[in-house]
Structures are given as C-alpha cells and as structure tokens.
C-alpha cells in the first residue's frame, strides 16, 4: 500500500477517535460541573481539563474566563482550535477524502455525512437540545464509523493502519481522561471530601468511558479509585483500557511489519507487556500521575516511529 495512503488512513482513524474521546472528556467534565457539591465555581475544573488537553494557551488567547459556555464552544466549534470536535471531524473527512478510493463507499459516506452535519451545526442549535445530546451524537457517529470499518473493509493492510490509528489515539486519550479526573481530585479537595461527592465523580468517569456497567459486572462491589484505575489501565478485557489499546496496537503493528520496523515493534511489545503483567498497587506507589505522563510520552514516541517506518519513509 502507498505510504501516503497509509498515512491518511492512520490519521483519519486517529481524528475520529479523538473526536469521540473529546466528546467523552467534555461530557464527564460537564456532568461533574453540574454536581451541586462543586458549587458555583466550575472554572478550575474546566481549566484543568484544558491543561491536560494541552489547549490552555490557545484558549486563554481568546477567552478571559473558563465559563462552561466558553469552554464548550471553544472545544466544539472553534475553527482555530486544532483540538475542537469541528476540526477533528473535518480532518477525519479530509483524510478520508484523500483516500476515498481505498475506503468502502459506506465508510466514505459515513465520514462525509458526519462532517456535513457538523458543518451545519450552530451553537444555538447545540444549546437547544443540550450538549449531552451532541456528545451522544458524536459517540454514535464514531461507533457507526468503526462498525462500518469492521463490517465492510477487507482485512488487509488498509484496515490494519486504520486500527493502529484508532488504538494509538485511544491509548493516549484514555490516559488523558484519567488525568483529568486525577487533577479534579486533588487540588482544593481535602481528604475528608464527602464520600457521596467522590462516588459521583468516579461514576461519572466510568460512564464517560462506557464502563459503569462493566465495573459492576467485573467487581460486583463498591466503586473505589484503585479498582477504577485497574479497570481502565490494566484490564485487557475492557475495550477502552490502556492494556486493550496497547494489545491492539501491538498486534496490528506486527501484522504490517516491514524491514525497518523491528525497534518500533519491540517498544510497542514492551509497553504492552508492562500493562499485561503490571499491578495497580505498584502503579500507585510510583505515582499515578507520573505513570500516566510517562505512558503518554511513550505513545507519542510510538506515533513518531510509526510515521518514520511506514507513513513518510525517506526515499527508497
């Protein structure tokens, strides 16, 4: 397959996944902002989220305060914000457009139709139905896109690069979702925070990654931070966990393997096995936040290496 084609497929999948996870992060933060325990002051929560998404500076250049409306409009509609859902869906469509001949017509039409709808959405319409309905829509479009991908694409290299993009992005994004939660727990929250507040926070997090029912099923017990972290980091049977994402990254990578990708495959395998054989207690000893930051650095590095090995190779 052409390297450029693989590049577009990889980024098409990454942007779709990013749009979905951005909707998820916004959804959980929006829900938390509505909890009465959080009082009137929701700004630090939004600021924290923007920081973890590395969009704080871009936001502050335009908006003086982190009001819910300002942050949501920035993260959903802003054409100048490379992380906005608008930009992610546009980039998904542009990448799909560049390789539309490689996609099944259903997959191309899905991506095109999603973009056409996003393009026509206005803030007025968004607030009419509430942001929740919009986040739901983004998630469903992403589900549809993934379903159409798996249900119609030939199981060849093209599909591998799409899946590689999906899971590499998901690994990064789930780590960020966990970090958002971590930030919200510590500063300003004393040790005696009401259990009820804590419960809502953790359950909102679980819901944001579609893991609330899963948690109940797996643990059949009350919600504790340690178990939530274990579920989202180490459980390979949890579809959005770091362990599952890395397992998919590694297996798709080995299937597209070429003459120069050995070191990239080794690094992916190493990261995957750490998750497979890791223990959550140990991760908490090292420090949850350090662990997640280090993980995201490695994911970033893998992304660069995949580019060099497959997507934009130097001549010959």
């Amino acid at each position, binding site marked *: 397959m*052409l390297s450029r084609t693989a590049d577009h497929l990889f980024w098409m999948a990454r942007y779709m996944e990013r749009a979905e996870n951005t909707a998820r992060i916004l959804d959980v933060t929006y829900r938390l902002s509505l909890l009465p325990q959080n009082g009137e002051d929701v700004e630090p929560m939004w600021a924290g989220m923007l920081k973890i998404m590395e969009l704080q500076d871009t936001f502050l250049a335009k908006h003086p305060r982190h009001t819910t409306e300002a942050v949501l409009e920035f993260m959903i509609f802003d054409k100048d914000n490379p992380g906005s859902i608008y930009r992610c869906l546009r980039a998904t469509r542009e990448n799909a*457009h560049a*390789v539309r001949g490689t996609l099944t017509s259903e997959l191309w039409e899905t991506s095109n139709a999603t973009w056409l709808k996003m393009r026509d959405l206005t803030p007025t319409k968004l607030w009419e139905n509430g942001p929740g309905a919009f986040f739901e829509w983004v998630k469903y479009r992403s589900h549809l896109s993934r379903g159409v991908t798996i249900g119609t694409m030939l199981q060849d290299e093209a599909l591998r690069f799409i899946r590689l993009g999906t899971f590499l992005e998901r690994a990064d994004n789930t780590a960020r979702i966990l970090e958002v939660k971590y930030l919200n727990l510590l500063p300003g929250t004393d040790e005696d925070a009401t259990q009820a507040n804590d419960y809502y926070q953790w359950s909102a997090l679980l819901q944001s990654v579609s893991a609330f029912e899963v948690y109940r099923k797996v643990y059949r017990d009350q919600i504790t931070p340690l178990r939530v972290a274990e579920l989202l980091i180490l459980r390979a049977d949890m579809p959005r966990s770091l362990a599952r994402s890395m397992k998919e990254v590694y297996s798709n990578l080995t299937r597209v393997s070429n003459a120069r990708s050995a070191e990239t495959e080794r690094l992916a395998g190493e990261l995957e096995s750490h998750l497979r054989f890791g223990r959550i207690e140990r991760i908490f000893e090292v420090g949850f936040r350090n662990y997640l930051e280090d993980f995201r650095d490695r994911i970033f590095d893998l992304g660069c290496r995949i580019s060099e090995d497959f*997507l934009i190779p130097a001549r010959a």
Partner: protein
Amino acid sequence: MAITKFFNEMTADDGSVRSHYAGYAKWLNETPADRIERKRAEADALFHRYGITFAVYGEESGTERLIPFDIIPRIIPAKEWKSLEAGLRQRVKALNTFIHDIYHDQEILKAGHIPADQVLKNAQYRPEMQGVNVPCDIYAHIAGVDVVRAGAGEFYVLEDNLRVPSGVSYMLEDRRMMMRLFPELFARHRVAPVEHYPDMLLHTLRSVAPVGVADPTVVVMTPGAYNSAYFEHAFLAQQMGVELVEGQDLFVEDDQVFMRTTQGPRRVDVIYRRVDDDFLDPQAFRKDSMIGVPGLLKAYRAGRVTLSNAIGTGVADDKSIYPYVPEMIRFYLGEEPILNNVPTYMCRKPEDLAYTLAHLPELVVKEVHGAGGYGMLVGPASTKEQIESFRKHLEANPDKYISQPTLALSNCPTFVENGIAPRHLDLRPFVLSGTEIQMVPGGLTRVALREGSLVVNSSQGGGTKDTWVLEA
C-alpha cells in the same frame, strides 16, 4: 438571435413523440408529479452523501459543488449509435495515426496536407517525443470526443479531447443513480449497459504496458484532492482496483519508476495520468511543478514506463489542428469521414479574421488552447458591450482564436425551476485504444441549464443526464 429552430431529441417537428422516446414519455406522463419531485430531491441528497462533487476554479479553495443531475435521460436509438460509434472509431484511429506520424516521419506534412508550421510551431507539439516509440503506436488511449447534434439532426464533432478528458465517472454515476431511483424504467427499456467501462479501461491500460512486462502494475496519477476532477480520479482507481498516486508517491531510479509503499519501493509500469504534460516532470517541463515526478520523461523515453495518454497528444486535439481531421482520415485510412466537422475560421489567416470580425454577433469564437468553456464568446448570446470588448482581444491576438458558426444545438426536455423545458445538450462518448479500439455504448450527456445557453461545461453551470443507447 439568428437561430430559431432546434432539433428536439424527444419530439418531432409535428409535435409527436419520437418512437425511441415513446416509452419514457408515457411513463413521465403517468407518474405523479410529487413522486418525481421526491425522487429528484433524493437524487440530490444521494449525490451529496456520496460526495460526487467537483471543485470550481476561481472560487474559494476547496469549494465543492454538485453537478446538477437531470432525471430525463437522453435516449439514442440503436441505429444512430451504430453510425456514431463507427464515426468515432474512425476518427480516433486517424488521430492516433496522425500523432505517431508527426513524431516520426511526418508524411502528412511532406504531402502538404497540413502546413508544417501549423504543427511544428504549435505549443502542444513536444519535440521531446520526436522518434520515441510507444507500445502499439498508440498515443491517445483514452479519448473523449465532444459530439453535438445540430440542424436537422446530423451529428458534428465539436472537439477531440486527447489529453486528459474527464467526465466518465459522471456517466457511470448517472446510470447508477437512474437505476436506483427508477428501476421500473430499466425493466421497460432495453438500455445498453455501460458499467463495464472500468474493466475495459484496465484492459486497455494493461495492453499498452512496456514490452516484456508480463503482469504490469497500473496506477492512476492525480494532481491531488483539490483538483476539480479528483472525485473521478479516485473513482476510477477504486473501480479498477489500482493505486491512486500523487507525484510525491513516485520516484525514478535507473530510469525505472517506483512508488513508495509501506513495504518499500514497488515498480510501476503503466501510469494513467490525469496531470497535464507541463506538470509531469519538473526536470523536463515546468520547473515549478510540485505535482510531478523528477526524471519521469527520461524513464518514459527509455520505454520503461507507459504514460497514458502519451506526452504530446495535444498536437492533435488543438483547435487549430481540428479543421484538418477530415483530411487525416482520408490520408491515413483512405476513407471518407463518417462524422461532420464544424466549418472553422482560423483567425491567424487574414481573410478568416476579417470574416470573423465582420460576423461576431453570429459566431462562436474560441481560444485555440482554451478548455472548459473559459475565455470564449458566444456571439448570439452576448451583449454589444461583451462583443466589443472581445473584439479588442481578438484584434490584439488573432493567432489565439478560431471561430465557428453558432450551431443550433439540439435540445431535450429538462427539469428546470418552473417545470419541464427544452435545454441544449452535447455528448461526450469515450473511445479506448490499446491493442484494439473499444467503447461502451453511451457517454456523458451535458446539458446547459440556463435558458438559451449553448455552453454545457460543468464549470459554467451545466448539468448532466443519463445517456441511454437502446439495444435494437
């Protein structure tokens, strides 16, 4: 307007429906207006969702538009198609022979049938091609010949497009759309299929691979996703199951062309290129080309790769060469031309220029190298001011222009804002030449949607219709 009477494709002069349209006219009559309206809206929505669009030059970059699609087909009876097809095959065969002759012995120039300067000083003549042999001696593997019907119903060739003719994807999509919207019509009519065009194209491309390549790798080369015909490039690559490449995906080493793949370099044997000659190779042609492949011309001249169409075909479809095509047919094939040429005045000749200047309100004046309906004057449809301003361009650069009488293009009933009204149309059938000449029965019918307009180009607001060739 000098012209008052037009040939109507559907109805005869006495108002009766022509026999090949009888079935359709009956159906149209019986079908409730609201169902038709619903179907037309559905067609629009589907074209949008499929993303069957084209980009418009001169508008904000990335602007994509739908080409309006009309649900009343253009129907051609079997007998008419038969003679049209024979005429097209004859014409393209002569044109390919002409290009080969020009780049080899130039017999036709020696015999004095065409002034040598007219060919050799033409900007489309490529000296780089002199003496180069190409597989099967075929240069224009894909030709899109524009044909119109005028006067009492006879066909005229308006233009031979031998460089990178486009539009075939709309021919295929229009058919797909009609079959989806109105399957019952196809049960009632024996419409000749066109869906196998991509197979035929692939077969043609493989047949002209460099000598000695047993299992050639074919690719489609596009200028990129922002090109006006990008949809078609992607569509054809997909339908043929070959890679769609851009210049940056290819490189040349030891006169061999390779593409960059995830598994390393892979050899390329046949390039169906949708990039103009000028931009193909920055080392040989325009140095500023960002969409070409350095070294491509050298590999091509060494016979290691086939370009389709060949470099330098423009020398045969140029408007200044067009008047000589009937002569080519007689010279190379020893046959009388089956299809008519439109009488053409070449403004580089003083007497033709004088005639043109004296008759501007009646004539169509075109740029010799123009395409896409840009930079032309349609006398009868222009205001005095437009004519006078055009006159200045013409007087300043007579060599750049030719003129032709304004043809009374045939028309066909078409859905417009206030119901159904006649609109003018043309037809672009596609002729494939490799080891043999092949055609699918049909072509792209373009229709001028503005009342009275004779310009059918999609860049000028033209639409398309499905084209039915009926089987006898």
